[in-house]
């Protein structure tokens, strides 16, 4: 037994008898044939005639779409001043037609999206306001963090050690393998590229200076920060965002806990401890990679590499790099948390803010790196 029935095509024929126009509707008037039904109705031009009879006796199938289109046809005729009457409406469709007739959706207007110079200006203005709001939001969180931190100074037991440890485990220990591997490769690539270039001047040994200074001052910490922004920053935003979507933040408020204290501070602290450690690991593994490559490609044995490195870099070079790490961590964490708190109800907004968090964090990390470069140059380091 199959209930699936063959669907007859919708038909519509008109005939004129004096003043009276007869529209005979037949076949299946269902949503499955909506294009055919619409085409039939477009082809039918409601003329100016006094009386119209809609003969529904041929209708075999009817659903809301068909009933609505017939109802719309009736409306079109009446708008032209005709009198419309229905004949041959089968009993089983009466309740459906009655249901449709009790609803009057408003007249349909196509949506037009305007594009103009004013629209561009408006969008720019809104963007500026958004940036302003971002700055205020960051200040708000920093202020609230300051309050929480001062509370912790008075009463150290309020620091959530376990939370910090869990976050540290996720953002630092979990990131060690990928950060080490990435830096190892970068160290090797810098030495290989720089080494071949320097060899044309017969200065291959200076590749050790190049790699040492570049890695320790800039590349180690910068690449680690970018990796952490992509790894932990996006995770913070997504976690906080989905907690916000599911009213978990509101639950925290109602229980009398501060979101800054419970969620943001542990993450931020963990990240500020994690990034210098990760940057240090990145420095070591980049130098290791560099040493291996110079040995293999440029025939500089490890003893010579170490000796040259010792002359080229000082402890100060390492500190210049590592000093930047906590600041970058703070920027990544703050941006991630601000974006997380901006998530509204939809899945789309969660995705948008996670993307924004990573993009903004990486951009700000590079800007801050530039500011540090200017600062160190002016103090002569």
């Amino acid at each position, binding site marked *: 037994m199959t209930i699936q029935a063959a669907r007859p095509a919708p038909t519509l024929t008109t005939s004129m008898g004096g003043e009276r126009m007869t529209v005979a509707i037949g076949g299946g008037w269902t949503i499955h044939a909506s294009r055919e039904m619409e085409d039939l109705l477009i082809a039918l031009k409601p003329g100016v005639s006094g009386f119209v009879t809609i003969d529904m006796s041929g209708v075999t199938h009817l659903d809301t779409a068909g009933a609505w289109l017939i109802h719309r046809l009736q409306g079109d005729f009446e708008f032209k001043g005709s009198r419309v009457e229905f004949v041959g409406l089968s009993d089983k469709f009466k309740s459906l037609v009655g249901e449709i007739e009790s609803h009057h959706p408003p007249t349909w207007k196509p949506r037009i999206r305007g594009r103009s110079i004013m629209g561009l200006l408006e969008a720019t203005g809104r963007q500026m306001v958004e940036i302003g709001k971002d700055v205020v939001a960051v200040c708000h969180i920093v202020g609230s963090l300051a309050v929480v931190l001062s509370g912790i100074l008075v009463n150290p037991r309020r620091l959530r050690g376990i939370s910090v440890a869990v976050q540290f485990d996720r953002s630092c220990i979990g990131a060690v393998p990928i950060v080490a591997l990435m830096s190892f490769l970068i160290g090797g690539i810098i030495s290989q590229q720089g080494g071949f270039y320097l060899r044309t001047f017969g200065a291959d040994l200076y590749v050790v200076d190049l790699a040492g200074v570049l890695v320790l001052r800039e590349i180690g910490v910068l690449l680690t920060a970018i990796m952490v922004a992509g790894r932990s920053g996006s995770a913070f935003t997504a976690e906080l965002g989905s907690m916000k979507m599911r009213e978990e933040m509101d639950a925290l408020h109602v229980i009398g806990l501060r979101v800054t204290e419970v969620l943001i501070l542990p993450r931020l602290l963990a990240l500020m401890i994690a990034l210098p450690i990760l940057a240090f690991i990145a420095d070591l593994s980049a130098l290791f990679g560099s040493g291996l490559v110079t040995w293999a490609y440029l025939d500089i044995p490890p003893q010579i590499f170490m000796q040259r490195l010792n002359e080229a870099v000082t402890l100060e070079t390492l500190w210049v790099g590592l000093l930047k790490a906590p600041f970058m961590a703070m920027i990544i964490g703050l941006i991630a948390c601000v974006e997380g708190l901006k998530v509204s109800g*939809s899945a789309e907004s969660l995705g948008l803010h996670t993307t924004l968090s990573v993009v903004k964090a990486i951009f700000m990390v590079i800007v801050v790196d530039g500011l540090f470069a200017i600062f160190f140059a002016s103090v002569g380091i």
Partner: protein
Amino acid sequence: MREAGEQALKPGQRSEIEVLKARGVTVGFGDKLVLENLDLDVYRSEILGFVGGSGTGKSVLMRAILGLVEKRAGKIEVFGEDLDKTSPEERAGIERRWGVLFQQGALFSSLNVRQNIQVPMREHMNMSQRLMDEMALLKLEMVGLPRDAAEKAPSELSGGMIKRASLARALALDPDLVFLDEPTSGLDPIGAAAFDDLIKRLRDALGLTVYMVTHDLDSLHSICDRIAVLGERRVLVTGTIDEMMQVDHPWVKAYFRGERALRRAEQDEV
């Protein structure tokens, strides 16, 4: 959609055509069987209320019928076609003829209500934008939502409005069979009664067959033509509410003749 040559059913009169027929359905997770050798029939144009204790697998059965959970054994026929033996095209044809209201609404959060209702129309039908907009507003009004809800995002709606919008989406293609998973849970008694009334009205107007998982005794009393009780991994008993009152199974007895239920029944008589 109703077909020619078939009489409109009067309330209380039962059609003998099974829209849904499950035989020997067995579903399990790991080494635990949730449903075992379960049989169930749903007849055309009836409202079937499906009850059972929490965790007895009501939602699992619904998900197994919809193909969201793999079943281990058994046969499920919908509209007379065995779901395991259909070609992808036939399967798509069946999916166009059923609508589902999930417990949490499951509206797409990145689309507004109007776009949510239009998703099945846009994907499965060849319709003009004008007709889609008109149909979306019509369905919206049929489920009793105000017009200005059309352009709202799901996150801006209250719980009851989400259920209604989700029902409007389930009804978008004028399905023959709708699955409702706890449609009145989380609604206030007035809202729940209105929702019950709506389902009944739509059944009468559109000839729907309704499969409704519910715990609401009021719904069971007021709109369900037949009730099926799930327990001990199978359908314990099916019948009208009056027949339920006579059943001697302890759980069924406690459910329909417990303190709350009796209070409800007394109100009925008054």
